[in-house]
């Protein structure tokens, strides 16, 4: 039983990025935790994120991915700072040409509710979803 990860994953599968908020002090926390790291309350709830933020760093993986992800290469990983003030690691949706050349550090990105690629069916987290972000739709 992994209540935190299961609940977070349910959100992603339903096209929602969830942020945990403390019921006592109201602060957001990421990644989900068993107790509020600020006031230590054990009463926390998930709420849907706005889905907007900026890209803090990114990389494109061409080689040396874990074997479960080898057939997804190349793929891009980014650290996204959400408008709510928390951050997370996410996959970045490729542009139409299959690359990621228009992504910029400190530039805006948005949560992509429908991943362009299914979760890997291999490895220790087979079938588990992850958050995807893309450039703002114009």
């Amino acid at each position, binding site marked *: 039983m*992994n209540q*935190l*990860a299961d609940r*977070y994953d349910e959100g992603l599968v339903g096209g929602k990025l969830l942020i945990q908020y403390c019921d006592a002090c109201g602060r957001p926390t*990421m*990644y989900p935790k068993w107790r509020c790291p600020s006031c230590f309350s054990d009463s926390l709830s998930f709420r849907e994120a706005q889905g907007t933020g900026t890209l*803090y*760093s*990114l*990389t*494109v*993986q*061409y*080689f*040396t*991915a*874990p*074997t*479960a*992800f080898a057939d*997804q290469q190349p*793929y891009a*990983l980014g*650290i996204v700072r959400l408008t709510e003030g928390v*951050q*997370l*690691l*996410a*996959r970045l949706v490729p542009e139409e040409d299959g690359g990621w050349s228009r992504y910029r*550090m*400190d530039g805006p990105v948005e949560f992509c509710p429908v991943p362009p690629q299914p*979760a*890997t069916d291999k*490895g*220790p*987290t087979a079938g*588990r*979803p*992850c*958050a995807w972000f893309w450039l703002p739709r114009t």
Partner: protein
Amino acid sequence: MDNAVFVGIGELPSGRYPDRNFMGDLVAAGHLALKDAGLTPRDVDTLVLIPCLHSFIDQADLVFSRVVEELGLNKAVKSQFMVHSGGSTSDNAVRVAGSLLCAGEAETVLILQAERWGSAPVEAMIDSLSFNGIPLDWEVPAGQNFNAIGALITARYMHETGSTPEDMAGICVALRKWAKLNPNAMYRDKTLTIEQILASKMVCEPLHAMECPMMADGAVGLVMSTPELAARRDQESVRIVGTGGCVSHYSLGQETDLARLGWPKAAEMAYDASGWGPDDVQLAEVYDSYAAVMAIAFEGLGLCKLGEGARFIAGGETSPGGSLPSNTNGGLLSAGHTGVGGGTALLAEGVRQLLGRAGPERQLPDVRRALIGGTGGSYMDAQVMMLERVARGTGGVPPTKAAGAAKGAAT
């Protein structure tokens, strides 16, 4: 840590050695270190073991006392145990061993490390690493892995400092110059140029293949004791002047300052504890599994100007003949990445230089003060240790205290 000193080191060459064996390497490194200190296993009362990452079974052997049997120490040692914080393990092992010595819980400690990464199947090692220090719940499902972690840090560092691909590659070249003087280094025989690095394939943008650390076999032993025993045994020794540390995150995705990490806080603590400033550092041995990791540490430690770490190192300041010789064994990037042992090898090199035992080619003249910097996992922590050579016979007691003790003895 006034009552703890290093008195001996041992190391086997790093690289790919399929004919060597894990336990054989551990025992060999232990005997080398003890011989270096003029001791035998019989002098050891406490064993501190640094984990290996290549095999859970071999690691279990460490936890459950196989080394005690191998060294013939059944019923002779008081305690043996493992300390583990990934790449910063050696820093924490010293913190623990030193504290035991200071508390009177130990008198002679043998710290041992061996790794078989270079001879293990590469894909299996990459896979095991992808969920060893990376959160299974939050980052593994996205395809996170250690080259990506290095790349995410490097990308942000370059973005904030304006460091160029040539600057970053130049760090790898600077490290190779030292490796060529180190008979234990994996790449002691191979020259490296910026052009070669930038022409190698892009692995994880902005990291090229030749900027990624090469997994290696290796083994290191360190002997620690008390100043009093060192004086009685007439050993050369190295004392710990002060330490500092900062654990900044677990998940790389939660690090809010990728281009600084925990270094500024750890550095401040270590400088306060030692009474040193950056100008007192004559030699630095700082974790360098990726070029940016070393540059970021240098900036946080105040060893160069903020934002200039890459250009400082690439420019030759830390190379042979430079103003601040650093990673004089070639670092993880050129001596070989021996898993948890990469930091151990840097620590051993620092102690070796201070003991004056680095050999004719790379021994620094008149080096007395060294800074050791380590980090583990996804660069989750920054660990800093200030080390100082002690004159034989004074047994590691700081000069002022030695004088005080002598006066006390006279009255």
